């Protein structure tokens, strides 16, 4: 069973790494498209300068997101072939559609956008970045359609020993999809926005290019507010969804072993002992769990022991309780980061409209570490979502332990795990180094290069022999 563990570690690590880049790409693509739209509409050079500067980060990030995404598609077959045989019919279809509908769009138009600045009219060039942005969102939609099937299988029938699709409408109207998709997109928007806010804050603190970064931080804060508030509302609908569709995940997220009282209180923090199956030292907010679960101030929430009994009756002997501590704390970290982001954007907008933002050095200083919060929130959101589903790979249909490739040895998985971890670590370091370099250089340095160098994406690039 060592294979299962290694394959899980590999899936978790490569997915979490991939998911550092995806939300930033989605968020930055949107912000860059907005900046370039402002340029085309207002015809002010500064917006083009902004588009160029922020696109350097976007392109570095996008490249890593793309290459780490290829392994995501391949590893279902490589490590989880039993799973792939079982659900390929209904799980593979959204992935194939994603490639046809979204990948081609993104990858074609990103090439056109990078290299087409002087070959296309302003409007067509602008349209190409919007198509990239739309492509990133479509991509997320189809991936989440596939993932939502694992969380909440719908639109299939069991036939020939496999889950075969029989209702695409059900698959695409999956309730889980429609709570997860907006939540993920708002999370991505917030990720891009707070990246722009944090980097701009750094420059404003240094008093470099103040006009440029005041405008940037303004766009970042507005977009960040949309992302933050969107996260909060869609997060709430996720909880309500969990209550009736994946109550075990919800109970684990609350550390609730026995049924709650009515009305149920929400646990802020607590000490969980998974061995003894008790949660002690709870700090609670009365009524809140009932409200989160049912949108009203009454109603009890079932505990893990009750739910496990129900599942044993349904699926046979076994332990259906996911890793409780991980689920519990992941949920709190995720929700906590979301809360900070909402407050940060509102406070920033308040300062912006009172024209005090460039002078509020404490706020600006705080915004630099805040860059990392969305990434932390995104990661723990996924950890909660995927760990909370265990022991199932497809909820109620197939267990993770039964999903691995029978013909792949632990040694092979270990080899690939080490190879990919090493490469991913190197890529991560390179990204940070390149980002720091671009930040150090800043947008102003471009002017010292030959002004007739018109490649818009050569900020900080080598100019060997260009002129």
């Amino acid at each position, binding site marked *: 069973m060592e294979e299962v563990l290694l394959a899980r570690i590999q899936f978790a690590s490569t997915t979490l790494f991939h998911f550092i880049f995806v939300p930033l790409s989605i968020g930055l693509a949107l912000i860059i498209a907005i900046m370039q739209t402002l340029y085309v509409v207002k015809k002010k050079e500064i917006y083009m300068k902004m588009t160029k500067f922020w696109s350097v980060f976007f392109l570095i990030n996008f490249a890593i997101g*793309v290459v780490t995404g290829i392994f995501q598609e*391949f590893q*279902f077959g*490589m490590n989880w072939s039993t799973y792939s*045989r079982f659900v*390929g*019919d209904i799980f593979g279809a959204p992935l194939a559609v994603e490639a046809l509908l979204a990948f081609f769009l993104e990858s074609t138009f990103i090439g056109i956008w990078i290299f087409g600045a002087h070959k296309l009219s302003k409007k067509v060039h602008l349209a190409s970045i919007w198509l990239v942005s739309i492509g990133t969102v479509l991509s997320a939609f189809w991936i989440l359609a596939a993932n939502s099937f694992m969380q909440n299988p719908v639109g299939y029938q069991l*036939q020939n020993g496999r889950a075969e699709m029989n209702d695409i409408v059900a698959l695409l109207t999956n309730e889980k999809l429609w709570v997860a998709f907006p939540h993920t997109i708002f999370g991505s928007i917030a990720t891009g926005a707070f990246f722009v806010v944090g980097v701009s804050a750094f420059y404003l603190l240094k008093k470099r290019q103040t006009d440029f970064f005041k405008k940037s931080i303004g766009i970042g804060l507005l977009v960040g507010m949309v992302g933050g508030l969107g996260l909060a509302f869609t997060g709430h609908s996720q909880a309500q969804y969990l209550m009736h569709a994946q109550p075990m995940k919800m109970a684990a997220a609350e550390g609730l072993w026995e049924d709650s009282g009515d009305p149920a209180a929400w646990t802020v923090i607590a000490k969980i002992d998974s061995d003894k199956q008790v949660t002690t030292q709870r700090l609670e907010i009365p009524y809140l769990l009932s409200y989160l679960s049912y949108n009203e101030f009454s109603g009890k929430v079932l505990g893990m022991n009750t739910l496990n009994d129900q599942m044993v009756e349904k699926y046979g002997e076994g332990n259906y309780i996911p890793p409780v501590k991980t689920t519990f704390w992941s949920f709190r970290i995720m929700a906590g980061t979301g809360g900070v982001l909402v407050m940060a954007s509102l406070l920033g907008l308040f300062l912006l409209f009172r024209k005090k933002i460039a002078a509020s050095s404490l706020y600006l200083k705080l915004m630099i570490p805040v860059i990392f919060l969305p990434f932390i929130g995104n990661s723990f959101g996924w950890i909660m979502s995927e760990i909370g589903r265990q022991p199932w790979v497809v909820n109620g249909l197939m267990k993770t332990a039964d999903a691995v490739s029978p013909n792949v040895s632990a040694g092979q998985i270990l080899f*690939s795990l080490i190879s990919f971890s090493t490469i991913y670590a190197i890529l991560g370091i390179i990204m940070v180094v390149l980002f720091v370099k671009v930040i150090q250089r800043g947008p102003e340095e471009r002017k010292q290069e030959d002004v007739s160098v018109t490649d818009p994406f050569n900020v900080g690039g*080598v100019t060997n022999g260009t002129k």
Partner: protein
Amino acid sequence: MALSDLWFVLIAVLFIGFMILEGFDFGVGMGTKFLAKTEREKQLLIHTIGPVWDANEVWLITAGGAMFAAFPHWYATVFSGYYMPFVLLLIVLIARGVAFEFREKVDSPKWIAVWDWSIFAGSIVPPFLLGVLFSSMLKGMPVDGDMNLHAGFADFVNIYTVAGGVAFVLLSYLHGLLFLTLKTEGPMRKRAKEAALRIYWAAGIVLAVFIGLTAVYTDAFASRQAILIPLFAVVLILYALLHRLIKKGREGFSFTVTAVTLAAVTASFFIGLFPNVLVSTIDSAFNMTIKASASGEYSLKLMTFVALTMVPIVIGYTIWSYYVFRKRLTEDSEHLEY
């Protein structure tokens, strides 16, 4: 024609499209080591494929996705059975994909050298591995009764599969060189032409050897004589004419011939496999057929609908993107940075 057969053809088309499109940009990638001498020339070469390589790679991703959706068993057997080759393929594709973006971001010769090697490895290893993959699938692999593949080193690497791999590498390089004769001006165009004339012989010999070995090591000719013999005959005749075409500077024609050659070689694997998706060396009863590996009717119908709507649109904007970047590049072109 059953829908599963149609999807077998569609997946073949995706792989053919991949070999034609990514084939030339693999070839250009190999050229960055063999053909380009200065930094400026490397930039020139990379710039010729800059706008399109990313989209070209999506053909492979789509082919993989389509296998997953339309033939879950085929996808599961191949991707788990070829575990180590896929690990290697992914590593070099990752290195190549980021190299284009990274290489000019830091002004250091060492840094650039690292990414140059990444581009080179990422351009030469994938066509080799895909050649090995396809030829070994046609030759047969130890697939058991549960559709699991337990291959040893000799199953992957033998004279036939290596010939297939080398053929893909050399044809891609030739294809890339001819692409460069179309996309560049001046000394680079001339040098690409000269190199193409040299590679022509090596690629031609390997191609002929490979076709011969196909007859020896696989049942393809026995079962698909009526299609494969005329197909390879046409390919060999066209290839024989290619030398003259290159010499005369008929660049468009030459490029078309290598495209057709790559397409035909790729297609021959699928033609040889039909009606199977994988041949078992353990017992022919374990051969995986198209029918037995396919998804349900509903899924296939839906995917057919999506493919028929989307593929024309994708092809439309792909052609448009080549039209936008139709001009030849020269070393004096103003901006060659990525």
